[in-house]
């Protein structure tokens, strides 16, 4: 019985410590920074690629080569820049 009481007090102390730590920032923060850095680059490129692919497909549907491809390339670039801005905003908010 004493053992159990002892354990309960220790558990309480540990919980308090955990709460304190989660109020301050924890050690996963560093890795999420680097994760964010890796994220931004591909975010830009992939939107451009998707836009261009959509343009290419629509071009072969409507037989309007190459105008839709060019148009959607620019739309994709805009989407990519927006993606990066959104991701950066999210990263700033988290801190």
């Amino acid at each position, binding site marked *: 019985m004493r053992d159990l009481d002892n*354990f309960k007090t220790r558990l309480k102390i540990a919980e308090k410590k955990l709460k304190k730590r989660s109020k301050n920032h924890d050690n*996963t923060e560093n*890795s*999420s920074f*680097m*994760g964010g850095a*890796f*994220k931004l680059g*591909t*975010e830009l*490129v*992939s*939107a451009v*690629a*998707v*836009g261009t692919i*959509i343009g290419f497909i629509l071009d072969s549907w409507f037989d309007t080569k190459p105008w839709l491809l060019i148009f*959607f390339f620019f*739309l*994709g670039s*805009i*989407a*990519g820049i*927006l*993606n990066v801005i959104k991701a950066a905003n*999210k990263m700033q908010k988290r801190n």
Partner: protein
Amino acid sequence: MATNPMQQFEVYRIGPQIKIAGVDLSFTNASLFMVLSAVAICAVLFLGTKEKKLIPDKFQLISEILYNFIAKMISDTAGSKAKPYFPFIFSLFMFVLFCNMFGMLPYSFTVTSHIIVTMLLAIFIFIAVTIIGFLKHGFGYLKLFVPSGVPVILLPLITVIEIISYLSRPLSLSVRLFANMLAGHTMLKVFGGFVVSLGILGGWLPLGFSVALTGLEILVAFLQAYVFAILTCIYLNDALNLHH
């Protein structure tokens, strides 16, 4: 001795050729390493949860840390509504992590350095998240593509841009993991080749680089698994808590 740095990515058949309905389903080295990582995950978690000790041993400690890590990540990024999806994200993280880490062993094969594997994972996540979004919000999920406070003239353009950015998710998710693993492993082998070709006189510098790069690659292997899982959480968050 393999001198071609790209040779490590070659997929070859192990055992007999199996063809079902014209589709080649033979067991390859890629399948072997997927099975190996799945078995390793099961072994670690089984050993870790076999005896529930108050003072954990090594395996229990590893599994508890992994559990807490993912549980905290999900509740931080996607909130409490995402709790039911914990098993999926946990398995996803463990699979990518173990595939990456198995790739760090010499003479092994890196499953995640092939775009077909990462693309399949990403497309599955993309479709699943889209279905979850529609199930939770109905057609209200389409509001994701129509940001509020945009002038009516610009609305069609913005909607198309938002759709492109939504469709780019699986691509960016898969290309990031694939490109990091491919580039890192190629670089390791290129520097390894330098060590051999420069010989005992000049080979020490690339050898040092190789050691440093191996450390970096282990970091990248963990980090990419983490990024893959956290982005899944972020997409899930968009689908569960719609606020645009």
